[in-house]
């Protein structure tokens, strides 16, 4: 297991690049999901006002 984590001495490069990659993708996904919810809420409010 330690050998796997060590990645032939390149541990810091591999784990940091994979870490940044997946962290960014997940954050980006969550931002868009929450923005969608926010906009849906705003839209339903403005629609109610018009009606």
């Amino acid at each position, binding site marked *: 297991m330690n050998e*796997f984590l060590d*990645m*032939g*001495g*390149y541990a810091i*490069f*591999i784990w*940091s*690049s*994979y870490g*940044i*990659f*997946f962290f*960014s*993708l997940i954050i*980006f*996904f969550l931002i*868009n*999901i929450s*923005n*969608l919810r926010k*906009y*849906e809420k*705003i*839209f339903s409010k*403005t*629609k109610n006002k*018009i009606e």
Partner: protein
Amino acid sequence: MYIKIKNNHIEFIKSANPYLIFATIFAFVIGLYYSLFQSPPDYIQGDSMRIMYIHVPSAWFALMTYSILAGSCVLWFITRNPLFNVVARSIAQVGMVFTLMSLITGSIWGKPTWGVWWVWDARLTSMLILFFLYIAYIFLWQAISNKELASKISAALAIIGFINIPIIKFSVDWWNTLHQPASISKLSAPSIDESMLIPLFIMTAACFLFLVTVSLIRFRLVLIENKILRTSN
């Protein structure tokens, strides 16, 4: 050429969302298993070449997304069908994220391989320009309050910026660059061993699923944004 979006289309995109999210996670888990456990290390680079499995798909989709972006801006300019404007705005940010990821992972790969984080060679510089083009496209649209004008200016920028795409693709063949030429091209057998192609293609599929999933979420988001803008005016 005029395609109109109906409510049942949006309902369909909405219902596909959970399956797409599941498929993306599934593909990434398989891809991670293959790229971190199954794949052998490279004979020169050792384990550091595993970064390629996230770097190369990011770069591919950075270019592909920009091509779709520029293509839909062209179609929008000619037909003025708002659908193409919505498509362009849906995918721009995903492309920007992929460009940033290919720059960051490439930089982390460059340190142990070349000995430096960054060089100003033609490939790296043109890729950085692509990142700025994405940012300019997104911010221009947000900054200009007249949205008709904003769409025109940002679309013009996206189309002119497309000239950068062939420059990125062929920079490694046209000029001496520190970045190596493409390992996979249609005309010749790939210079990558099969045991390394499998993880690369699984990761590519996973990134593609991510691109589709987030683009469709943003597609719904942009449509609602348009509706809000229309009612508030």
